[in-house]
């Protein structure tokens, strides 16, 4: 008898999806599908809108990472219209992007991922959530809330609203950061750095506790897609970087994305499957998100983060394929974000009112914007007419970049679980929370 296992919905996920696993008579895994059920087809209804309205529409693609969906189309329109933004705007946007990275990575670690590790995989599902973690480990819980809150409040101060920001406009940023507000955030930096370090300690302890899982479950060689600026990890600006399963790196400027990135249309999911074009589909299936970003980088942009990256590489290699290392990579990025925030908050350009140019003129043409969202690279390609009305848009969002890679990983893990019974021999630690 064929057995179908369905998980509906997949929870603690930034998005909507279902999982389906098909087991054959022989106990062999025949198929794994990760269905994305919530695509909302923004591309079509961006047609006909004023280009400069797009950055206030597209954040609604994702309320967890609205900032990249605010900044990336702005960059694409600036590219299309040939607009140069002042240096102060560049730094403000970098700060905004890192504030989001910080709150999103803290949220992901504590609210989405940690319940699994802290309670263990066999805990009562009704308790395996962040509310229970807060109840059982109030100190850790409060720290987590304060980290998320710092990032969200900084997003709000720069972006105007924490969810669905409004401050980036074609030509720069509408307003600089208020000096008094900047000082309030600067005062909190020391605590935040401290908590980030504590978070890393918790993370490394978890990695150690679950070493058997990290090292053996879901080690799947794939391509990776990330973004770097001259080879250095960057989440606001840079080139597409592809990493092959054996570690070869290929760079493409954003405007050349069509040479690198292809979309395959599967019948069973509303999200497309992305792959590295020169390698074809399905061989060229890649993964995005934190580990991909880390694998793409020659080095991190800041000292503590780079130290953490080197430590990880010393332990699991230069291009690790360990799915559970995604959490580790996320913590390295968390460290970088707070270091970048600390540096930029001290830079007077973020309070400089000269953060916008008036030299903005719609023109016919197309442009590409690229950033790294907390869960993968984000690319907008926008076509404008002479009046500045959007004629057409192509969006490659993190969900698309990840789906094919997620399915490939799930297939691998499903085989490990159902065919090789790999879980039975795994060493698991005593849960921190019982």
């Amino acid at each position, binding site marked *: 008898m064929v057995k179908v296992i369905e998980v509906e919905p997949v929870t603690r996920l930034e998005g909507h999806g279902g999982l389906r696993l098909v087991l054959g008579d022989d106990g062999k895994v025949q198929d794994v599908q990760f269905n994305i059920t919530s695509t909302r087809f923004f591309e079509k209804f961006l047609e006909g809108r004023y280009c400069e309205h797009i950055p206030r529409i597209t954040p609604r693609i994702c309320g967890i990472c609205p900032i990249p969906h605010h900044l990336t189309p702005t960059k694409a329109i600036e590219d299309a219209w040939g607009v140069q933004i002042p240096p102060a705007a560049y730094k403000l946007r970098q700060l905004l992007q890192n504030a989001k990275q910080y709150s999103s990575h803290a949220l992901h670690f504590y609210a989405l991922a940690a319940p699994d590790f802290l309670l263990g995989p066999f805990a009562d599902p009704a308790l395996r959530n962040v509310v229970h973690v807060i109840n059982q480990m109030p100190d850790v819980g409060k720290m987590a809330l304060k980290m998320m809150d710092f990032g969200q409040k900084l997003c709000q101060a720069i972006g105007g609203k924490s969810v*669905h920001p409004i401050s980036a406009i074609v030509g720069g940023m509408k307003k600089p950061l208020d000096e008094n507000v900047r000082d309030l955030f600067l005062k909190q930096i020391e605590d935040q750095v401290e908590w980030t370090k504590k978070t890393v300690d918790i993370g490394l302890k978890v990695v150690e506790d679950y070493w058997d899982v990290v090292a053996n479950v879901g080690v799947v060689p794939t391509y990776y897609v990330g973004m770097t600026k001259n080879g250095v990890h960057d989440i606001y600006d840079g080139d597409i970087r592809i990493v092959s399963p054996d570690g070869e790196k290929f760079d493409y400027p954003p405007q050349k994305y069509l040479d690198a990135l292809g979309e395959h249309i599967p019948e069973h999911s509303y999200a497309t499957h992305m792959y590295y074009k020169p390698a074809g589909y399905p061989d060229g299936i890649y993964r995005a998100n934190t580990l991909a970003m880390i694998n793409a980088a020659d080095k991190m942009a800041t000292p503590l983060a780079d130290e953490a990256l080197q430590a990880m590489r010393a332990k699991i290699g230069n291009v690790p394929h360990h799915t559970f290392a995604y959490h580790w990579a996320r913590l390295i990025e968390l460290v970088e974000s707070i270091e970048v925030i600390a540096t930029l908050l001290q830079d007077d350009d973020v309070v400089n009112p000269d953060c916008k140019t008036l030299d903005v003129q719609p023109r016919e043409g197309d442009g590409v914007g690229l950033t790294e969202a907390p869960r993968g690279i984000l690319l907008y390609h926008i076509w404008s007419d002479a009046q500045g009305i959007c004629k057409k848009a192509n969006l490659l969002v993190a969900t698309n970049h990840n789906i094919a890679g997620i399915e490939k990983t799930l297939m691998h893990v499903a085989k490990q679980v159902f065919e090789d019974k790999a879980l039975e021999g795994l060493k698991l630690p005593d849960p921190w929370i019982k």
Partner: protein
Amino acid sequence: MVKEKKKSEAGKNKKLQLAFYWAASCGGCEIAVLDIDEKILDVVAIADILFWPVAMDFKYKDVEAMKDKHIDVCFFNGSIRTSEQEHMAKLLRKKSKVLVAFGSCAVAGGIPGLANIANREEVFKVSYLDNPSTDNPKKVVPKTSVKVKEGTLTLPEFHDTVKSLDQTVDVDYYLPGCPPTPDQIMTAVGAIAENKLPPKGSVIGPLKSVCDECRFEKSEKKITKIKRIYELDKIEDKCLLEQGVICLGPATRGGCDARCLDANMPCTGCGGPTPNSLDQGAKMMSALASILGLEGEEKMSDEDVQKLIDQVVDPVGTFYKYGLPTALINRKVMKK
């Protein structure tokens, strides 16, 4: 909140039973709930959260197994586009005593509702066939049922249009905003906890417009040209509408403290229509008509006003950004 805490300690099983659900949503409404910060601990002290897909492990069958009206209050965010979302709306309606449309998408269709300018076939065509990055020689589009050798696999069906929650099921209260602010959320939670809910069918929000909450004064100045936001020179503490940029403040319900205006950006209308108007876009167009014109000239001819309004190349995106599915004009401005 302290009082409620005591109450809940006295009668442990009398805690409020809350549920959150997201349909066609972005997750921002869920983050807005987390943004109430440590007040979330107060909420947890007075309430059990039964169902919250972004943060908790619960499966659809858990909801199906609940008895009817088991949930005291269900906050439902997101609009309705697929058969799955419609099913969940109906199910949660049955299982909840009070159903709250949470956020602009559930209240009025929201930004995803802009998809109603086209139908399913057209949106599929753009996303799956026409994109330059798609490699799709066989012209595949996702199917709701796919035959494989193990049997038939199904996907939820996409409806032709996006609907608000109350176009799908009966709704008790509305909490607009994209997303609602933490204050608006706490007001709603407070009203529920203290059993001080307004009459059924009410919008939980103040009876004022965004202009009433805005820090800028209006000076009755007329404008002759509609400007685009990037054309504004330096930041002036002056009403944006009177500087020539379209701001939906006059046509939008307040409650958000005019937060966009604090960032010197125009209101785009996420609070929905003002208390006594039915159609936000129509109200905005008449507000615009009354401010357009030459200083000193009492009355312009309707034709001249129309000419000025015609400067707006994209009326749908400008006047109906958050509520196309529920707008009175609705499908009139769209091709069939």
